[in-house]
């Protein structure tokens, strides 16, 4: 079985995020880059599926030069090989273009499954996996809290607004995972050393057969008109409970007309 897993480098979860004045793009330089948290679960799931069924895990990432750190991290967790799409013309791509690049990187390589995280912490759109499924014409099995695969058939529990649905399809399929699905492993020292020797293919948009005019900031199909920081909320009142904490909250709620 051949499984692709898509990982994105994002600014550190706890870092304060802001948009750059000049082009309204996320300021990625001001914070450390880390693997998008949910993508760690995607890598873990891919590894577990391969450990159970045999095969190969290929990690795919699109991002600037330093996103190679994130590819390495997946390799040190245990993925076998990497594809890093790195190209200055891709900067500022919107989700539509990102999905085009990722679909191209997946197409024609014989993958049975491609696994995504269900959301990136920077863009928070939760649309790339569905868009890639649409582009590839593959089955979409997203928001999985459980994935099972047997004999060319894959079945997931899709988390819904109110419980879960069981969704089934023949491979190849696009899967995205939620954080309930597993507990991602930490790279071991051995894994980190081994990752250094694993192959990573670096590809440009042109090498993927994409027209440069269809990707990147200039080709984005949505644009920021303007943005403004909202003034931080005024500090609230904090009291220590001296046996009347509940009454005090009630008084506050009454002044705010909640009760």
């Amino acid at each position, binding site marked *: 079985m051949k499984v692709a897993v898509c990982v994105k480098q994002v600014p550190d979860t706890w870092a304060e995020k802001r948009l750059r004045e000049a082009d*309204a793009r996320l300021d990625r330089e001001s914070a450390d880059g880390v693997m998008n948290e949910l993508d760690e679960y995607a890598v873990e799931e891919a590894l577990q599926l391969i450990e159970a069924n045999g095969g190969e895990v290929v990690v795919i990432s699109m991002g600037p030069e330093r996103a190679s750190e994130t590819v390495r991290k997946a390799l040190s967790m245990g993925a076998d090989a990497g594809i890093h799409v790195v190209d200055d013309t891709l900067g500022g791509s919107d989700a*539509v273009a990102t999905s085009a690049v990722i679909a191209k990187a997946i197409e024609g390589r014989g993958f049975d499954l491609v696994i995504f995280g269900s959301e990136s912490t920077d863009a928070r759109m939760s649309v790339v996996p569905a868009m890639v499924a649409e582009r590839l014409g593959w089955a*979409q099995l997203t928001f999985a809290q459980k994935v099972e695969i047997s004999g060319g058939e894959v079945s997931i529990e899709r988390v819904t607004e109110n419980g*879960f649905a069981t969704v089934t399809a023949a491979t190849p399929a696009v899967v995205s995972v939620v954080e309930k699905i597993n507990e991602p492993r930490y790279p071991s020292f051995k894994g980190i050393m081994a990752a250094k020797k694993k192959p990573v293919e670096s590809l440009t948009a042109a090498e993927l057969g994409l027209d440069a005019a269809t990707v990147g900031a200039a080709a984005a199909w949505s644009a920021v008109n303007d943005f403004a920081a909202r003034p931080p909320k005024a500090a609230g009142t904090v009291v220590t409970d001296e046996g009347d904490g509940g009454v005090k909250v009630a008084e*506050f709620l009454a002044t705010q007309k909640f009760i």
Partner: protein
Amino acid sequence: MGEVLVLVDEVDGTVKKSTTELLTAARRLGNPSAVWVGPGISDAAMATLGEFGATKVYVAGDADVAKHPVAPAAEVLAQLVAQVSPVAVLVPSTADGKEAAGRLAIRAGAGIITDAVDVTLDGDRVVATQSVFGGSTIVHSTVTHGVPVITVRGNAIAPEAAPVTATREDVSVSLSEAARKATITGHTAAVKGGRPELTEAQVVVSGGRGVGSAEGFSVIEALADTLGAAVGASRAATDAGWYPHQYQVGQTGKTVSPQLYIANGISGAIQHRAGMQTSKTIVVVNKDAEAPIFELADYGVVGDLFSVVPQLTQEIAKRSS
């Protein structure tokens, strides 16, 4: 005035409040047309859609549309986009809604904006307002290519009625082969309580690891019930099995934006904040004065939730009797 397509969100055949919010927003852009994807629409649902200004209701009622996740809604919308060239397509910002919007954007060759908290018309441009980075930045954006596909967050726009008589138009769908590839083979619905829907509630009372056990949630529920509130939980509480997963608030749970959010025994991890930070008023009860959740508090009590919360519940009951 052009048509504005609004994808209806329903539960067990009843139109959700978020749809009435989207119809209200759609009226600022043009003539709202509701799009119902699913077998059978009731008279009551038609009436609700009309009450909020839907002049037309497109019904894609083929039994097949409910058998496959997400793709059918995207294909129905794409078909209607080609047919009526709408001013915009508004979709609820739920997991299903965002995914359907994403697929629609690809099919229709259109730009997409997710999680709008407002939409307005500026000349003939549809402008979406987004509140990003935990509400710290307000962004105005437009779609520059194709029909604007915009997902709109629940509880962000106040629904206002504008009654019309909705006319039903049946849409015959021809789902692509790709849309039929994934099949829904079963549903496991979590038990529904009698409380308001978490994402629609005006007041949410949440509990975290500090609640300590499933039984501990009875104090959270008691407070919620005196306030007519929904109950939420942190991931620590849902992972421990103290409260069902569908009540998880946060990055990988629900995003809520109520008038009042009361966080009890929750530390305020960034993933939790991501789902509640835009609540209008935030009250915190936590025994650790250093807990980061206090940074968000309009009013906070450093104390044990097992004494503060029951006292609060009692006090509210006393005041309202």
